[in-house]
């Protein structure tokens, strides 16, 4: 799959990451190179092979559905660039 500038711009938008127009060409080249390199996996026969979902054989643990943590709003907000009245504050989203 060839990667063009428009694809890189679209993927950057999906990733919510501004990429300066001046860097798009170089990035398109690099990503294209990496993607065509990983495409060699197509030559591996994986018929009937399940994708790995668990690295070590272990059952996912369960626990009672109970509150075990929380109740420290100030700690949670301590690192926020902007907090207000016990909430994270963000730029206005509704005009």
């Amino acid at each position, binding site marked *: *799959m060839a*990667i063009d500038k428009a*694809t*890189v711009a679209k*993927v*950057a938008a*999906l*990733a*919510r*990451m*501004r*990429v*300066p127009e001046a860097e798009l060409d170089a*990035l398109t080249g*690099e*990503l294209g*190179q*990496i*993607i065509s*390199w*990983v*495409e*060699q*996996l*197509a030559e*591996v026969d*994986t018929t009937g*092979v*399940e*994708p*790995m*979902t668990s*690295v*070590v054989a*272990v059952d*996912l*643990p369960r*626990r009672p559905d109970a509150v075990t943590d929380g109740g*420290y709003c100030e*700690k*949670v907000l*301590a*690192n*926020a*660039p*902007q907090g207000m009245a016990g909430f*994270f504050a*963000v*730029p*206005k*989203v509704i005009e």
Partner: protein
Amino acid sequence: MANLTGLSIAEALDGLARREFSAGELVQAHVAAMAAARPLNAYITETPERAIEGAKAADARRARGEALPLDGIPLAIKDLYCTEGVPTTAASHILDGFKPPYESTVTANLWRAGAVMLGKTNLDEFAMGSSNTTSYYGAARNPWRRTGDNRPLVPGGSSGGSAAAVAARIALGATGTDTGGSIRQPGAFCGIVGMKPTYGRCSRWGIVAFASSLDQAGPMTRSVRDAAIMLRHMAGHDPKDSTSVPRPVPDYAAALTGDIRGLRVGIPTEYRVDGMSDEVTALWRQGIAWLEAAGAKTREISLPHTKYALPTYYIIAPAEASSNLARYDGVRYGLRVPGGNLREMYDNTRGEGFGAEVRRRILIGTYVLSAGYYDAYYLKAGRVRSLIARDFASAFETVDAILTPTAPTPAFAIGEKSDDPIAMYLNDVFTVPASLAGLPAISVPGGLTRDGLPLGLHLIGRAFDEETVLRAAGVLETAASFTAEPQGRWSP
């Protein structure tokens, strides 16, 4: 008094127990050495006051006869571990000002055992790199130089600051994290021991996530025994990490018997790759001879999907990274770059906050996970990953451990390879397969190149069989008797 910064952890514990020196003196010596070695840029944040306080408490406990197992041992912590109240940067601009209100499980375990923190070490941004040159805080430097060549070399990565600190004797040991080789490759480049335990052995809770199915914490030390000692106090089940495994943690140091008679060691044919230096090949051959001289039986084995490990890794790791790094959005912590509206604020914050390599990997990850490509890339990589794990499983039916080189080359100069991402990725060709399979592996210094740079030997074991890996590594260490030290040319 002995040169306190030159001791191993085991020797320091003995000296403390025999009252030859105090934890205060031990820590003070390291604090002074750390300050003198600042040109290495091994630490992002130094915490000398905290270390000195910790040493006081350790000395008080020892005086009361209540010494803890690692009481007063000064360690460096990779700046990917969240440490309560101490800045944690992941070497990224986007975590500006972040002070975790909590402590990672692994560091909490170490402090509970009495160890003290000297500071937080440099790394590749978000642990993405093999040279420690992608750090927002500047490249860390390898304390080693080529003979007759003063150009600064990379310490390897991503745990480059930790490796440099341990090699330069400005920490007795350090924590690292390993996603595709980030403990073992810098260990080899800096002439120290680096171990990645089995996936699930150490809790990942409180470690800034890169690729969650691959990330694993591990020790970086100047001896195999020290790695065994540190790992014992890092590992253990943690209910806060659902992939942490509820198994008892053995006394790893007890496994270092030096007896590997009858041990079956596999030598994988597929690890003879293009671009491997002749000195690396020679050291590998030497490693085989050392193990055989100690009574092990080596044999050729085949791991047929080896050549697909790197491309598999470079789909899975960026895919997981693009998901994990979605949390850095300028809302809850770290950098916020204003924009006209919420969407622009996200775009600006992430565009400015992430460096070039991180942006590249987020884009690859987002691309391979995007609608229409998910099956072709991500699911395909998951299937090949199963085949790679299967290769190891069938090899371990006939061998107990696998010996390979750690990296295809010794340390390179800062700036070399930086214009070609794939050339940089090839550094991890020998370490990535064990990461994909979740297996324990260690790098042990094996010798020096003709121009005086360290090279590592790499042992891979069965899942949760860290003990065999450590035992065989101990034999290699004894045979190699690697006593060379970097020359301290970082001093101004």
